[in-house]
């Protein structure tokens, strides 16, 4: 007899996972396929590896934008955050900014000026009491610019408060301490990136990257303009494919080293510790001239050892 169908907690069932349904071949013969009991969101039949891409199609409440959120480590957010799914992705990055703004726009479904029930429903949907409403799915599936997701904190620029003020607000005490140099909201962690000799700094949201590779690509894009003359305008020519630490290579071809300041105030070399540990402890980044960076690496290893 086939094992009972597992339903994930928003009521969608896994129709047929290849291994689960009939106890198909291989190592999973007869054993409960643990994948089925995993808490995840996805179209019936979707593989867990694809869930990042598929989620938004299932839940009407999730705007289309999150389909492109593959870089955002969506699965990490589900596992890590208390707020399911809707916590994915901070609203802050410049690329996403415009799009996530758009999603908050009220459209036709509000018609009639929002009087009476129509308005109320729209507001109810729009405002979204995310703490209560886990059951509502697909209310506005058809309207891609319509209903705002419940996580209102993610609309860029809303509420209209200067970021330095947001940082000093006590949303909760522990969060405040971490905020010292980074602006942290639901699912975003902005840190400053400076480069010696550059006329101005940049900010990156560490939560939008899931590993050093993506991060280094992004930094490279951001700062390549400043190193024209060291490596040529196209970075290192002739490099194909992605190497593990392309930025390291790029930088080692020039005179720069990527470093970060950790929670203790020490300057460390980027790349020594696992990515998650790095994002946890990184408060800001500095692309420094190689000559200033001598002696960083040994300390990083020491700290890692001390922690473990």
């Amino acid at each position: 007899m086939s094992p009972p169908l597992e339903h994930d907690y928003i009521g969608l069932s896994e129709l047929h996972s290849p291994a689960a349904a009939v106890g198909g071949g291989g190592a999973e013969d007869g054993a409960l396929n643990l994948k089925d009991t995993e808490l995840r969101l996805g179209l019936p039949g979707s593989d867990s590896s694809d869930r990042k891409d598929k989620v938004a199609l299932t839940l009407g409440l999730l705007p289309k934008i999150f389909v492109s959120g593959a870089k955002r480590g969506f699965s990490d957010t589900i596992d890590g955050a208390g707020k399911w799914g809707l916590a994915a992705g901070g609203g802050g990055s410049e690329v996403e900014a415009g799009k996530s703004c758009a999603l908050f726009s009220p459209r036709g479904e509000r018609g009639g000026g929002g009087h009476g029930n129509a308005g109320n429903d729209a507001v109810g949907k729009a405002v979204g009491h995310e703490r209560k409403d886990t059951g509502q799915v697909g209310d506005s599936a058809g309207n891609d610019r319509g209903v705002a997701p419940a996580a209102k904190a993610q609309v860029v620029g809303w509420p209209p408060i200067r970021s330095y003020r947001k940082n000093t607000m006590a949303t909760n005490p522990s969060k405040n301490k971490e905020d010292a140099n980074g602006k942290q909201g639901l699912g975003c962690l902005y840190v400053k990136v400076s480069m010696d000799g550059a006329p101005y700094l940049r900010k990156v949201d560490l939560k939008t990257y899931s590993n050093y590779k993506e991060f280094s690509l992004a930094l490279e894009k951001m700062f390549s303009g400043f190193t024209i003359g060291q490596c040529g305008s196209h970075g290192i020519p002739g490099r194909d494919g992605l190497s593990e630490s392309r930025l390291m290579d790029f930088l080692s071809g020039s005179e720069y080293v990527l470093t970060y300041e950790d929670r203790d105030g020490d300057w460390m070399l980027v790349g020594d510790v696992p990515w998650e540990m790095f994002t946890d402890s990184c408060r800001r980044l500095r692309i420094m001239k190689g000559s200033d960076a001598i002696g960083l690496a040994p300390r990083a290893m020491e700290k890692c050892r001390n922690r473990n």
Partner: protein
Amino acid sequence: MTYFPEEVVEHIFDFLGSHRDRNAVSTVCKAWYHVERLSRLNVFVGNCYAIRPERVMARFPGMKSLSVKGKPHFADYNLVPYDWGGFALPWIKAAVRRSPGLEDLRLKRMVVTDDDLDLLARSFPNFRSLVLVSCEGFSTDGLAAIATYCRGLRELDLQENEVEDHGRQWLSCFHESCTSLVSLNFACLKGEVNAGVLERLVARCPNLRSLKLNRAVSVESLNEIVARAPYLVDLGTGSFAVLDCIGDKGLAVVASTCKELQELRVFPSDIYGAGATSVTEEGLVAISSGCPKLNSLLYFCYQMTNAALITVAKNCPHFTRFRLCILDPWKPDPVTNQPLDEGFGAIVRSCKNLRRLSLSGLLTDQVFLYIGLYAKCLEMLSIAFAGDSDKGMVYILKGCKNLRKLEIRDCPFGDIALLNDVAKYETMRSLWMSSCDVTLGGCKALAAKMPRLNVEIINESEGTDKLEENISDLHKVEKMYVYRTVAGPRNDAPDFVWTL
């Protein structure tokens, strides 16, 4: 008046306080223009891209103090990309060449680098006052340059800037012979300053009247400082803001004791959800009935009712600035479920001197009809998540004769509203629209009709260069910034800004 000698006319103009009055008299006739421009000392430029710096300084050779503003207001809320523009350097460079007698410089929302500050510090021997508001791009190194080279500096006022802390003891760079400070504000700095250095600086500046320190200064230090500066009028230890955890009850206490209160700002302590103690319409009503002199308000809350706003309007007819932010977009009156049109309508009807208004909550086109009808003095209007149709925006543009800045986000206003009265935008400083329904075609049409407007589109998607060819005119524009200018399209626009 043209029969009077120029010296007399000039003397009369001395009595004109405001830039607007001076601008007005300078358009009367050539003679007056000539007299006015030679005698103007304080120059105010509301939009750094409206005119080239050289032209400003050529017109006003006697300029002693300059005030320039850069980025649009919504840049404060991260809606404008970091490298959009607003660079201080061209202004400083032009002043170095043409106005070496410059004494005061005030910059708001501009990008200022350490090199800029260094150039500034070394170039103006009579420099007295530097005020930077909401600027970024500089560090404590730049401040060190100011402290080092601006002998005779009277004022250094840093408000809400993003200053990179390079750990330099910039305060120590004030020379021992510097005794001229009248006002010093470094509340926005995150780093520490040497307590001894600060105390000695304060002690040797007998004219010091205003001192605003940052949070890093210890209480002991504060004691020493106050002891050494008995003539201080204004002392601050970082921004004091009322957080809404004082609740409605707290506000009632304020209302009962602070009868002279003119300005109040209440910020939310938790923007992610209504806390157990936060403020509602009750707090606002209490304030309005207890503080009749209140003329400027910034109020964040979770709910508001029409009845409350109507009461507030009756109690406080003197509002000049009224900014209400209900944290949930589109939230109606919780008691009646109605939009807040009537409430805001009451505010604009009653407050005849209202110059600045920010709306929130559930609002239909009706509120804009009211604003257009009654808010005749309105100069700046901020709208978010409001309105039903183009009519809303048209009411505003038609009715608000004194409108200077209009900023709109996430409203259903499109090309019809945008193009309804294109000449209107030359009477305003700027228009910002983001996440609305204006299309690329609409923006192009506006740009074509009005050559003295810069119509800037901010396009942040990746692959920007290719997009320009493929993008259809029907594509909705994410962010549009329109401003009047005599300088033509700017030459420092980054890749993602297209001037149509």
